[in-house]
């Protein structure tokens, strides 16, 4: 696959790893947060931790859209199906997240609720066209990447005058989340704070939309280097090297590793579309981060009729996070998956307790699925030592 395979080249990857090893200073520790779940997934899938020196620590951030949606919003989605009998369309990953009662949309579907996985927002519009007598709601989640497609769906539904279509909007904003994180006591109290953050691996695809500009504030105000990074292993390794170099140099700049798709200004057409349809919510509760001001979108007055929250009476979003689940701390970088008591016992991808165990971008799922051998210490070392797979 062009523009993918090149960035998985084994020789270059090992070369970058060697360059990182060469670049790190013996006395320095490099605590790098990858904000985005895409990076979390790429790191786990390609086993990149094995290539990095011990002083480089990768911290998973709150950038998995499935993970950060609080339980209460999922309860509202479930109520749309169970109480209002709508056809609920959503992306696949959303279907396995447990709500307050431990019930997921997949189970609601198994019960008989009409929940449909869509690949694109246009598919949801097509469902509304095909079922004029049914209310069809698109359960919209995600950061700045998925927002323009949602806006396009509404534009199309309006053109088709599909009055049975509406959107349950849960779109959230990356910069607000980063700022909330940087402002949190965990991070801010640099002496007592439990999460030392030395730099950010910045999101690739979000930045194709919002551009590199919004990160300048973090670099300047919080003195954190940011490298906007692609999702292939060479991208990540190069970005780590770039961050190591910034840290070594005492710089705090916004650099764009993913220059092949990210510009300074981003996709202004998409930005205009979103700006014309949505207003900022005064506050929105995130899983892990709690209420974050101006961190999410809702339909503006002109588009209010497309808002499922106004169309249907829904429970308030005060759902309780699952007991014992450390997703919140994990999303803030305070804990790692293996620190959760439920990890791998009560909570597995087959029966996730928290959202972080659902999406393959979730820290717990990524660690369980790809990384947990690093934990299995007993009787394992032999195999690790003797790992070469060819017989």
């Amino acid at each position: 696959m062009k523009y993918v395979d090149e960035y998985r080249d084994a020789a270059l990857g090992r070369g970058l790893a060697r360059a990182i090893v060469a670049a790190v200073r013996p006395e320095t520790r490099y605590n790098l947060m990858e904000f985005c779940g895409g990076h979390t997934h790429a790191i786990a899938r390609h086993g990149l931790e094995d290539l990095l020196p011990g002083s480089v620590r990768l911290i998973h951030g709150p950038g998995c859209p499935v993970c950060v949606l609080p339980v209460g919003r999922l309860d509202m989605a479930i109520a749309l199906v169970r109480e209002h009998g709508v056809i609920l369309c959503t992306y696949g990953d959303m279907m396995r997240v447990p709500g307050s009662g431990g019930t997921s949309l997949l189970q609601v579907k198994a019960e008989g609720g009409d929940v449909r996985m869509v690949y694109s927002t246009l598919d949801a519009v097509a469902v509304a066209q095909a079922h004029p007598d049914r209310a069809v709601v698109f359960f919209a989640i995600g950061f700045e990447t998925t927002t323009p497609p949602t806006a396009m769906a509404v534009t199309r539904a309006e053109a088709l005058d599909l009055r049975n279509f509406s959107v349950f909007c849960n779109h959230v904003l990356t910069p607000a989340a980063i700022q909330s994180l940087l402002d949190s006591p965990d991070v801010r109290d640099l002496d007592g704070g439990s999460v030392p953050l030395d730099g950010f691996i910045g999101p690739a695809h979000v930045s194709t939309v919002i551009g590199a500009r919004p990160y300048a504030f973090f670099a300047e105000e919080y003195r954190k280097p940011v490298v906007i990074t692609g999702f292939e292993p060479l991208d990540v390794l190069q970005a780590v090297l770039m961050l190591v170099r910034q840290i070594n140099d005492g710089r705090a700049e916004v650099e764009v590793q993913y220059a092949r798709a990210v510009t300074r200004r981003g996709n202004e057409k998409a930005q205009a579309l979103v700006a014309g349809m949505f207003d900022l919510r005064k506050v929105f509760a995130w899983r892990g981060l709690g209420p974050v001001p101006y961190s999410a979108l809702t339909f503006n007055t002109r588009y209010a009729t497309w808002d499922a929250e106004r169309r249907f009476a829904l429970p308030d979003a005060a759902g309780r996070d699952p007991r014992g689940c450390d997703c919140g701390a994990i999303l803030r970088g305070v804990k790692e998956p293996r620190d959760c008591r439920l990890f791998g016992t009560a909570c597995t991808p087959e029966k996730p307790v928290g959202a972080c165990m659902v999406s393959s971008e979730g820290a717990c799922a990524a660690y369980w699925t790809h990384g947990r051998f690093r934990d299995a210490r007993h009787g394992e070392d032999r195999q690790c030592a003797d790992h070469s797979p060819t017989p």
Partner: protein
Amino acid sequence: MRRPFPHPLNLSRGMVEMSHGAGGRAMIQLIDEIFGAAFQDPTLARGDDQALLSLPAGRVVMTTDGYVITPRVFPGGDIGSLAVHGTVNDVAMSGAVPLYLSAGFILEEGLPLADLDAIARSMAAAARAAGVSVVTGDTKVVERGGCDGVFITTTGVGVITDDRLDIAGDRARPGDAILVSGTLGDHGVAVMSQRENLAFETPILSDSAALNGLVADMVAAVPGIRAMRDPTRGGLAATLNELAHQSGVGMAIREADVPLKPAVRGACELLGLDPLTVPNEGKLVAICPPEHADALLRAMRSHPLGQEAAVIGRVVENAEHFVQMETLLGGRRIVDWLAGEQLPRIC
């Protein structure tokens, strides 16, 4: 022996009706004119409720699988050929020679007879090519909405004629070599490309094929094969994890050595799927002692269905029965079972 029916079935415009499953003359006619005509088997044609098998000396093996695939026809195959290949392969994975199949059909009222006829003829062609006979069957019809068009359950019987063979999922031992017979994920990608809400075009065809010929060459070359399995649902990941758990071992494979077609990789990137969890229907995983790996690979590559066979790793000791993979870049990760169903990943 049975006499022709007053009017032949209307294969161009007719539909399956409830009466075709009600045990009357309409059912017998459906069976005669569609299944009897397709399978042309003297035992089946006798019209008894059971078949007398003629079996060579050896250990008898039996397996069953249901086929519920949507869409019924996909690039490279259809539910009929698949129902033969899948079951023939499960028999063959024990080293047995597959000989006989039974076929149980569950049909939805309203299914076009033309579709059923095409499926039956595809099954018959696949059975003929694989050298197996469909000797007994059953037809049920359910109300419209009671099933999704057609479900087929085939059961296969075969005989292990070579006394030396002892092939089972619990026989993998640390040090053994792990081989696959060719590229992975072709079937799953070919089928997903046809799913209404995914709809993409790809040159990939399902790999659906009967592997008994390949297996015959393999066991002739290396009678000491420890385990064989076709990585169907859940893909290579599921099969390796199953074998690891059955044998109480770990597995270590190398990503660079796993054969994948570029378009399969493309489709998996697009849909966010791990190709190792995508189903295959004409591939096998084999495990053999390391000293026979070369001979086995040679035997596989000499067969048309094994030309892209590869050694992908080896069995290791591991208390957790993990399947691990060395990634392209030299890192490591677990290859876990598929969690949940194979939902295309968006985020």
